[in-house]
C-alpha cells in the first residue's frame, strides 16, 4: 500500500513501539502532526519550548532505558532544540529527534523558517540524516533507532523536508539493519580481561571507578556483584550514581571536583584502578598531570575506543559493552584459584576508613538559616531514598549528588557533561511519563528553574505531580562560589535580583506553592508536598543560607588530593 511520508513516519514510530513523543508543531511538520492526530497509539506531549521537548525525551530515556523521541519544526524549532540535543550527546543518551525541514526545492534559498539543521547539529549528534527521497524514509528512521541505541548511545536526528512528508511510496519497515561502516564491539577481548583480573588480584590498593556507562548499559547489578566478590572500594562519578548502592560500606561516594575526601584520596593513592564506563573527564580526575604522577596501573572498560587513553594513559584497555565484559570478568573471578591478598586489602581499607572518618560532607547548621544540604537530606528521608531525582546545574546539583544516597540506577537524572541549566523541570516531566507512578523530585535553584519555568504549564496540562525543591539563595550559587574563591569576592552579575514570588507563580499555573524560611519547617513542608499534595505539582521555595558553599572542592587545574575541605580552609 502506498503511504505518504507523514504516514510512514508515524508507522515507523509505531513499529518501534514508541509510546510518547515530546514535541511542538510548526509549518514544516504539519503533515506529520495531522497523522499523529488520526491515531492514538502514540501519545504526543506538547511542551512549551522545544528545548524542553528534548530534555523531557532525554530524561524519559535516562529513567527507563527506552529511546526518547521528539518532534520539532524547522528553523527556530531546531535551533531551540539544539541545547537539548547537545545535552543528550554529552551524556550519551539515546534519542531520535525528528525535525521538519522546508520543502526540498526551497532548501538553500533562505526560505521562511529554514535552517541548515544537519549542519547546525552535526557536532552534537551521534549521527544525522537529511531525507531527500520518500523511498529512503523508513530505512532512515530504522537506522536512526538502531544507531541511537547500539554502541555508545547518543542522539540521532532525522531531518525531513515538508514535501517528503506529502509524497507517497510503498511502505516497508526493515526488520533489521546492517551497515558496513558501523559495527560496534560488544564482547571484550578475553585475553585482556584475563590480564585485567591478574592485575586486580595482585593489587595492594585496588580501586573501582564507575561512570555513566554502567547506568546506560544497565550493568548496575553486575557491577555490584563483581565489586562485592572482590571486596574492593568503589567510587562513582556524577553520572554513575546509583550504579552501586550508595549506602553500602564498599561505596566511597562520588569522586571528583566535589567528591568525598575518601573517594578522591583512594583514587589518587590506589595502585590498580579499574575504570568502568567512565571517561576520566576534567571534573573527575582534576589535573591529568597531577593524577599521572602516581604510578598506578589502569584498566579501562569502555564501549567507545576513543574514550580510552584520551586524557589518561591506560595499561589494559578493554573495549566492549560493560555488562558483557563484567559477565566475563565475574566468570573468570569464579574459576580463578588466585584471590586478592586479604592482608593488603585489609590495610588498604584501614587507610580508607581513616580518610572516611574525616566526614568530609559534614556541615554546620543553626536554627535560623536553612542549610541547602539539610533540605536534600530531608528529601532523602521523606522519600525513603526511593524517588527519581532530577536536577538543574549548579550548587544544588552537587548537594543533591552528595546528600541523596542513590541505591538504584536510573534514579539520578542530571546534565553532567554539558551542564545545562533548565534541564531539571522538563527532565522531571520525562521521568514521570516513563514511570507513571513514580515519585519525582526536581532539585533546582532560583536561577536554573527560570530557564525553563514555562514548563509549569505543560505539567498542568498533563497533571504531572512533580515536586520542585528550589534551593533559593538569591545567587547563581556556583558562580558566586567561584567568584568568592578565585575572583576576590567580586560578585559580577551572580546576584539574581527581582525574583518572582514563586508561590504565586506556581499558583498562577494552577499548582501549589510553599515558601519555607525556617529550618524547623523544612521537613513538615516536604511531607506536606509528598503526602497531602501527593497528586499535585508543588513548588517548594526554600530560602536557604546565601553564603553556603559546596565542599569538598578540588579547584580547577588542581590535583585530586589537593582538596579544600571546608570554609575555614579558604
Amino acid at each position, binding site marked *: 500500500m502506498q503511504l505518504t511520508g507523514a504516514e510512514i513516519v508515524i508507522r515507523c514510530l509505531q513499529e518501534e513501539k514508541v509510546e510518547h513523543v515530546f514535541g511542538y508543531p510548526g509549518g514544516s511538520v504539519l503533515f506529520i502532526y495531522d497523522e499523529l492526530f488520526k491515531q492514538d497509539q502514540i501519545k504526543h506531549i506538547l511542551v512549551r519550548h522545544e528545548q524542553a521537548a528534548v530534555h523531557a525525551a532525554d530524561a524519559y530515556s535516562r529513567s527507563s532505558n527506552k529511546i526518547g523521541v521528539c518532534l520539532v519544526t524547522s528553523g527556530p524549532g531546531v535551533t531551540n532544540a539544539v541545547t537539548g540535543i547537545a545535552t543528550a550527546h554529552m551524556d550519551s543518551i539515546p534519542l531520535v529527534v525528528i525535525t521538519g525541514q522546508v520543502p526540498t526545492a526551497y532548501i538553500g534559498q533562505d526560505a521562511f523558517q529554514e535552517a541548515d539543521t544537519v549542519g547546525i547539529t552535526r*557536532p552534537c549528534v551521534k549521527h544525522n540524516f537529511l531525507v531527500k527521497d520518500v523511498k529512503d524514509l523508513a530505512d532512515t528512521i530504522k537506522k536512526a533507532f538502531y544507531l541511537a541505541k547500539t554502541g555508545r548511545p547518543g542522539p540521532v536526528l532525522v531531518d525531513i523536508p515538508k514535501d517528503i512528508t506529502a509524497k507517497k511510496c510503498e511502505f516497508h519497515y526493515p526488520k533489521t539493519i546492517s551497515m558496513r561502516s558501523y559495527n560496534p564491539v560488544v564482547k571484550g577481548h578475553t585475553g585482556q580481561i584475563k590480564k585485567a583480573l591478574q592485575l586486580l588480584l595482585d593489587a595492594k590498593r585496588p580501586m573501582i571507578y564507575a561512570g555513566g556507562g554502567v547506568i546506560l548499559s544497565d550493568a548496575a547489578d553486575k557491577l555490584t556483584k563483581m565489586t562485592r566478590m572482590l571486596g574492593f572500594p568503589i567510587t562513582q562519578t556524577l553520572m554513575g550514581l546509583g550504579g552501586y548502592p550508595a549506602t553500602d560500606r564498599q561505596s566511597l561516594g562520588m569522586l571528583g571536583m566535589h567528591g568525598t575526601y575518601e573517594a578522591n584520596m583512594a583514587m589518587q593513592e590506589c595502585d590498580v584502578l579499574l575504570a568502568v564506563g567512565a571517561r576520566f573527564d576534567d571534573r573527575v580526575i582534576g589535573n591529568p598531570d597531577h593524577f599521572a604522577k602516581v604510578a598506578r596501573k589502569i584498566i579501562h572498560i569502555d564501549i567507545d575506543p576513543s574514550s580510552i587513553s584520551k586524557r589518561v594513559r591506560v595499561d589494559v584497555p578493554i573495549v566492549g559493552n560493560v555488562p558483557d565484559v563484567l559477565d566475563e570478568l565475574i566468570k573468570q573471578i569464579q574459576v580463578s584459584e588466585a584471590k586478592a591478598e586479604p592482608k593488603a586489602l585489609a590495610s588498604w581499607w584501614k587507610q580508607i576508613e581513616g580518610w572516611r572518618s574525616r566526614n568530609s560532607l559534614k556541615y554546620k547548621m543553626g536554627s535560623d538559616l536553612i542549610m541547602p544540604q539539610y533540605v536534600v537530606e530531608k528529601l532523602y528521608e521523606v522519600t525513603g531514598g526511593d524517588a527519581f531525582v532530577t536536577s538543574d546545574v549548579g550548587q544544588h546539583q552537587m548537594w543533591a549528588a552528595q546528600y541523596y544516597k542513590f541505591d538504584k540506577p536510573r534514579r539520578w537524572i542530571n546534565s553532567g557533561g554539558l551542564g545545562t541549566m533548565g534541564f531539571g523541570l522538563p527532565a522531571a516531566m520525562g521521568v514521570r511519563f516513563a514511570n507513571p507512578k513514580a515519585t519525582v523530585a526536581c532539585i533546582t535553584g532560583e536561577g536554573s528553574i527560570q530557564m525553563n519555568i514555562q514548563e509549569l504549564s505543560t505539567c498542568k496540562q498533563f497533571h504531572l505531580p512533580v515536586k520542585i525543591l528550589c534551593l533559593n539563595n538569591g545567587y547563581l550559587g556556583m558562580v558566586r562560589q567561584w567568584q568568592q574563591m578565585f575572583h576576590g569576592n567580586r560578585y559580577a552579575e551572580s546576584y539574581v535580583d527581582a525574583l518572582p514570588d514563586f508561590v504565586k507563580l506556581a499558583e498562577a499555573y494552577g499548582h501549589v506553592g510553599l515558601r519555607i524560611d525556617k529550618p524547623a519547617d523544612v521537613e513538615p513542608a516536604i511531607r506536606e508536598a509528598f503526602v497531602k499534595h501527593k497528586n499535585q505539582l508543588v513548588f517548594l521555595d526554600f530560602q536557604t543560607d546565601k553564603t553556603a558553599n559546596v565542599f569538598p572542592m578540588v579547584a580547577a587545574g588542581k590535583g585530586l588530593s589537593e582538596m579544600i575541605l571546608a570554609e575555614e580552609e579558604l
Partner: protein
Amino acid sequence: MRHIISILIENEAGALSRVSGLFSARGYNIESLTVAPTEDPTLSRMTIVSIGSDDIIEQITKQLNKLIDTVKVVDLSEAAHIERELMLVKVRATGKDREEMKRVADIFRGRIIDVTESTYVVELTGNTNKMGAFLDAIDRSLILETVRTGVCGIGRGDRILKV
C-alpha cells in the same frame, strides 16, 4: 610527527564536512585533505596529512573511526607507502626565462601543458618535498600562480585498504 591518514568513507552528502568538522571541533591540524570517489562509486577515499604527537594521531584515528559513515581508517605513515601530489604552476616565460623554465621543468620531470607567448603552465607530480624543491629552483618573481591537490597516498606491496 607528520602522518598520512587514509579513510574509506560512505560517499554520502556531508561526509567531507563530518571529517573536516571533526578536525576543527577537536583542534586537530590538517595540512592537506584530498577526497574523491573510489572504483566503487558508493565509497570515497580521503587522504589527510596531519601533524601531531602519537597520542593526538591515535585520537584522530579513533575519532575518525567513530564517525558512522567511516568504513576504514589507516595511518599510511606507519609503514612503507607512496605519496604523490600534483601541482600546476603558471609561470612567466619570456626572453631567456622561457628556455630556462623549460630546462628546470625537464629536470624535475615536469610537463609543460599550456603555452602562450608569455606564459607556461607546468604540471608536476611527486611528493611534497619535490614540489617545494621545484618552487625553490625557479625564480620566484616569475611565478604567476600555483595550485596543488594535496597529498594522496597508498601503502606499498600487500598493504591494501579496501572494504
